[in-house]
């Protein structure tokens, strides 16, 4: 263990995510440059930017799907590949990114969170089953565990994938547009869950362009447009000047309570 990590554990906070001047380019096209970010354990952080601003590229870099052409990423002090092997990182996908006609039950999906800790043939042990039951109870889906994943509502689907991340026991959670298509009870449950996660020392990074939810849920916010424009506590970073920079002069105004354009597709 490196000495920095050791002292941090003494202070009971760990640097969960550390990105130093990360650059990513796809065949010469720059998607992200000089992106730096530090996130401690027990924080909830919103990653805000327009489509194509580099949110998903940043996620991909954190998950090791793209290699930064410059810069360095550390998760819990380890390289991304090692962190993945330790099951530190969980990705909670957008609802649109999943094939819901796939013949798997809620139980099967949550069990997938345990695969990385199982042996190569993925035979569940008693401890894996207990972890799945525990995760399902926390998201209030234990009674629906036998349901096919496609038979769930949008909010229940989101909870199923959160349960998968819980079962994985990940300390870093990457959530992609978690509030899209989610009902009110699920939103309440997610709010409680996030607070519990924070208490447990997990770090949550939420990629979204829904500014209202960022205000309600996130302690920190990262504004991104090809690079990190501003980063800090939500109340300090959410200024109209910063949002102007992020959204190129046409920001959805969070201060008036108006929701982002995505919630009003007809406008």
């Amino acid at each position, binding site marked *: 263990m490196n000495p920095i990590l050791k002292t941090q554990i003494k202070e009971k906070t760990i640097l969960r995510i550390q990105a130093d001047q990360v650059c990513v380019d796809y065949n010469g096209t720059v998607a992200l440059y000089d992106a730096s970010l530090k996130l401690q354990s027990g924080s909830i952080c919103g990653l805000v930017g327009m489509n194509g601003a580099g949110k998903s590229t940043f996620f991909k870099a954190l998950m090791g799907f793209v290699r930064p052409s410059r810069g360095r990423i550390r998760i819990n002090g380890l390289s991304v590949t090692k962190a993945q092997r330790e099951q530190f990182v969980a990705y909670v996908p957008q609802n649109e990114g999943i094939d819901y006609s796939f013949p798997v*039950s809620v139980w099967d999906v949550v069990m997938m969170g345990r695969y990385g800790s199982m042996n190569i043939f993925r035979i569940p042990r008693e401890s894996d089953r207990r972890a799945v039951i525990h995760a399902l109870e926390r998201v209030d889906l234990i009674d629906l565990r036998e349901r096919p994943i496609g038979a769930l509502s949008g909010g229940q689907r989101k909870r199923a994938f959160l349960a998968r991340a819980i079962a994985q026991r990940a300390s870093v959670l990457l959530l992609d547009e978690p509030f899209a298509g989610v009902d009110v009870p699920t939103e309440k449950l997610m709010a409680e869950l996030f607070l519990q996660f924070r208490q447990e020392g997990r770090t949550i990074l939420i990629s979204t362009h829904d500014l209202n939810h960022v205000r309600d849920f996130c302690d920190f916010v990262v504004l991104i447009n090809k690079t990190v424009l501003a980063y800090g506590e939500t109340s300090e970073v959410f200024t109209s000047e910063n949002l102007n920079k992020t959204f190129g002069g046409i920001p959805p105004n969070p201060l008036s309570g108006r929701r982002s354009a995505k919630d009003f597709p007809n406008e």
Partner: protein
Amino acid sequence: MSELFIYLMPVDWLVDPLTHEFMRRALMVSALVGGVCGLLSCFMTLKGWALMGDAVSHAVMPGVVVAYALGLPFSLGAFVFGVGSVALIGFIKQKSRIKEDTVIGLVFTGFFALGLVLVSKIKSNIDLMHILFGSPLGISRSDVNQTLIISFIVIIGLLLFRRDLMLYCFDATHARSIGINTGILHYLLLTLLSLSAVAGLQTVGIILVVSMLITPGATAYLLTDRFDRMTILAVISSSFSSILGVYISYWSDIETGGSIVLVQTFVFLIAFLFAPRYGILKNSNFVNSN
């Protein structure tokens, strides 16, 4: 022909063909190949690889011809060309702006044409019809052995890695984010696909083998919401169709490959109409009652 059905008791209809060595062999091979392809077809339909299955099965053609000409096991040649075609598809897609389905169509027809030209140019005792349409009734002992080995490899591979492959088909992003090497899974599935295509062309031939690699999975998909149950249903329906197809082919003196695939398609149509939850008759009732 219809007189046969009238005069024969059902038991005789089933037992009579078994007195022939070639029929026992054909039924055994067809049932096994049907089961193997049925198992793989679940992954093909869930991954959306139907066109890939079509491509690989056609692309093995020149491999079979070359292997026969060189006196090598035909499965070896077929396997090399099957995997080679996939590698070439990946290469062209990566290096050009052409869309994937176009590249797939382009590569497999090119390989298939090469196979046809080779058959006409290489003077040997290769029977083109045998390769194109299969001939389980005339399968040789060495071909049976090859098919047994291939089937064994595919079944073991799919059973051992079914969880990983299922996860890869369902959510490859999650698989990668927990440290699973999805590149290996991709090529594992392609390898098993090539091997299954080689096995399948024994019974139904190159042209129809894609049916073996898709239809049972599609049928099972309409019948259940459970992955494990889907694999079992696909294997059963595929083996059953293969056996029934061979029987019908024997008694009616019709082409065997076509017979097997027709039975399989018929089974699919039954599921399409009457599946408890996803059959169209069920759906129309549901709509009417509302």
